[in-house]
């Protein structure tokens, strides 16, 4: 065995599901993974703020007291909308698909 082979991504053995619909388990799993990544991102912001403060570039209270001006607010609002759009895409797809099928059935 000279080559390094990729370790498996999943453990061997039966994977139990706890809710009647496995989709609910998958959703819980995704939410927990997302929370973990959020914790990582928050830690990175925290590290950044502390480094900037330690180097005297941006004092800590400068971030807490910062208020975006009109242009920045506008840009943020657009980002929120785009983000919500991306996150809620599966729900939108489901609804649109349902609607299309209903229309299709109606035509027939």
């Amino acid at each position, binding site marked *: 065995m000279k080559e390094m082979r990729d370790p*498996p991504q999943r453990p*061997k053995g039966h994977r139990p599901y*706890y809710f009647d619909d496995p989709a609910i388990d998958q959703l819980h799993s995704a939410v927990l993974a997302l*929370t*973990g990544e959020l*914790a990582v991102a928050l*830690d990175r912001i925290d590290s950044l703020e502390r480094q900037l403060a330690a180097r005297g570039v941006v004092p800590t209270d400068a971030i807490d007291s910062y208020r975006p001006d009109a242009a920045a607010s506008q840009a943020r609002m657009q980002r929120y909308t785009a983000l919500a759009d991306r996150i809620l895409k599966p729900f939108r797809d489901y609804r649109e698909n349902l609607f299309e099928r209903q229309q299709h059935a109606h035509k027939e």
Partner: protein
Amino acid sequence: MSSFKRHAMVAATNHDEQARQDFVTAFRGHLSGRVMPGAYCIYQKRVEPAFVKAHARPPADQEEVRQWMTRDPYYQFWSAMQRRSQEILWDAVIDPTERQWASLLARSRKLAGKARGSRKRGSLHIDPQLQVPRYHTAADIHLQPGGYHTDFTADDVAAGVIYDQGINIYMNGALGPENNLTGDTLVAYLREKHPDFKPQRIVDMGCAIGNSTVVWGRAFPKAELHGIDVGAPVLRYAHARAESLGVPIHFSQQDAEHTNFKTGSVDLVVSHIMLHETSKSALVRIMKECHRVLRPGGLMLHLEIPRGRDAIEKFMHNWESYNNNETFARYMTHIDLAAEAIKGGFAADKIRVDEFAPKLDVAQMNYTEHFFWKILAAWR
């Protein structure tokens, strides 16, 4: 955040890798300390009363508790989180290990090389012919991908690197900076019960990464110390780790059911939370093997995890068995360890089963707030 000791064989973490490990540590602490106790609460307030209403009696055993609890949404939520946190735990440890795989391999080779040719150091013997028992190959214990035994490259150590850091996070640091809690517990037991017993030759069965073996080496520095396991990558890691910590141990890849130690050649045989990861038939064979290798007057000590006092506690303890690939553990609930030792050849009046409660934080107890170790002790 973590008190885990950064010895030479630990995979270093970058900023985000450390954040992931810290998150899963904190999240599991939250699950243990804040969410898990709710499972007992809903059992008392909701599940048991519903059962009593339907059957005019409380649940007779853990199986009846299981049938009702697994349908409860709170239990389902906690289980889904507990399971997922275990998967995320391994991911968080595997990432830095894979990133530094080549350098970890190089470090282990260097440490093993230093040991060779030195009488004051330990040794390593790998047996490529060894048949890894089915109770390891059927499912990956604790969900660690590849388990204790899979080599993903020549002279692999990854399983050990991952296991060492992983179990420390698993118990929210309760295992101590060198994952020394189980070894400390058994050494303390021996010192309290038999202060005059000075073993010359010690065998640690199912030693994995040698975390407890190192504790025995420090407690009895003059003894000849052996650590055996069926997993090759954990043993290579154990050897490198012990060398980096300066504790001479002879590690060899052997099955505790049938070892190559001479009959009557060992003073003390120990194991730490190993028995519940074997099988019904293996358990008797391990007892017989302990009996065989021990000299007359020699001692066997096995440390085991609690299995619960009543039906709900038994059910909760067996969460690991059904959901964390500790497949055999559920049968341990009904197994009388003293009776197993008798089957192995030990005399009934030379056997003791004791309970020992370590001081743990509530955030470190995964399935019950009443935690105690079980210790099987038998004289040859």
